[in-house]
């Protein structure tokens, strides 16, 4: 009796869980309706995100091989490109991808600027986005310093610090700002004027 009872409760729980997941998926994906005829230019924000995710995944791979000090950095990059299977591909993707990502972010920004989408109620979207653009430039800059042997001679900062900022500091802050950015876009809805 008791067992049966608990079994029932478990079943109910399972059903509850399932239905929660199901409502989540239905509300957000399968049954969700969106305005017709959104501009293809509206993809630029999404593409910036995809480009960022490519950077994160290739970057995590590179972290396993990179030696973050003045003496080891260049050799470790050579090692990745020559000795690790497909290392050359991921290293190059990580080095060239940011140029494309910056292009995407800038065209996303220009679209919003020229269409005046930053106006009320979307001021904070712009603020978080503008911070994201600055952070993107910063992460590019710190990243390009990592592939330079004698970075200390140029900037007076230890490569290890730059590495820490590049792989942890800036990405974490970017994640935070992206979270705010997406949350705000979801709350106000996408702008489909003009």
């Amino acid at each position: 009796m008791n067992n049966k009872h608990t079994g029932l409760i478990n079943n109910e729980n399972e059903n509850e869980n399932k239905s929660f997941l199901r409502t989540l998926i239905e509300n957000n994906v399968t049954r969700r309706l969106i305005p017709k005829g959104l501009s293809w230019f509206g993809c630029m924000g999404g593409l910036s995100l995809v480009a960022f995710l490519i950077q994160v995944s290739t970057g995590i791979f590179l972290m396993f091989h990179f030696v973050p000090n003045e003496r080891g950095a260049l050799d470790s990059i050579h090692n990745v490109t020559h000795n690790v299977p497909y290392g050359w591909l991921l290293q190059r993707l990580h080095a060239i991808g940011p140029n494309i990502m910056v292009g995407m972010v800038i065209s996303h920004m220009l679209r919003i600027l020229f269409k005046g989408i930053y106006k009320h109620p979307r001021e904070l979207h712009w603020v978080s986005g503008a911070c994201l653009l600055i952070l993107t430039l910063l992460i590019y800059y710190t990243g390009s310093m990592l592939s330079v042997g004698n970075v200390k001679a140029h900037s007076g900062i230890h490569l290890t610090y730059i590495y820490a900022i590049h792989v942890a500091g800036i990405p974490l802050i970017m994640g935070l700002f992206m979270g705010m950015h997406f949350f705000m876009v979801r709350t106000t809805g996408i702008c489909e004027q003009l």
Partner: protein
Amino acid sequence: MKDYTKDRGPERLEPFFPNEMFRHTIVSCFLVVLELIAVSIFPLPFKVVNKPDNISWFLLPLYKLSKLVHNELLFILILASCALLFISWPFLVRDKKNKMLPIKNAKGADSCHILQISERRNLWQRPILFAVVILTISSMIQLCFIKL
């Protein structure tokens, strides 16, 4: 989350899945292909940063500016104030219009009130702002070509 179904009929709506998902997938694939093409075309960017040939296109204006402005503190101040202006742009350029609108007061009688209405316009409908933006962009491009 914003409910798009509230203020428009079914003819102006479309399903997120599969329509929008499909579009997202297509453009994401397009991006991956673009990156793969770029990887196969361009050589490894793998040189000293402090040389102009290896500064990437979007950092070039900043690099040139840093060479033009000799004082380091001044350069950082300029950068910081530009960043601040950029971030606070929506608050600097609010376009509010004063409109007289009839509003019912508590007793139900019409009374005229001045309402500030923010109206969204394209940038090119606002000549001064448009000029400011175009001038900024073109001066950044010109900075890239300055010979030092």
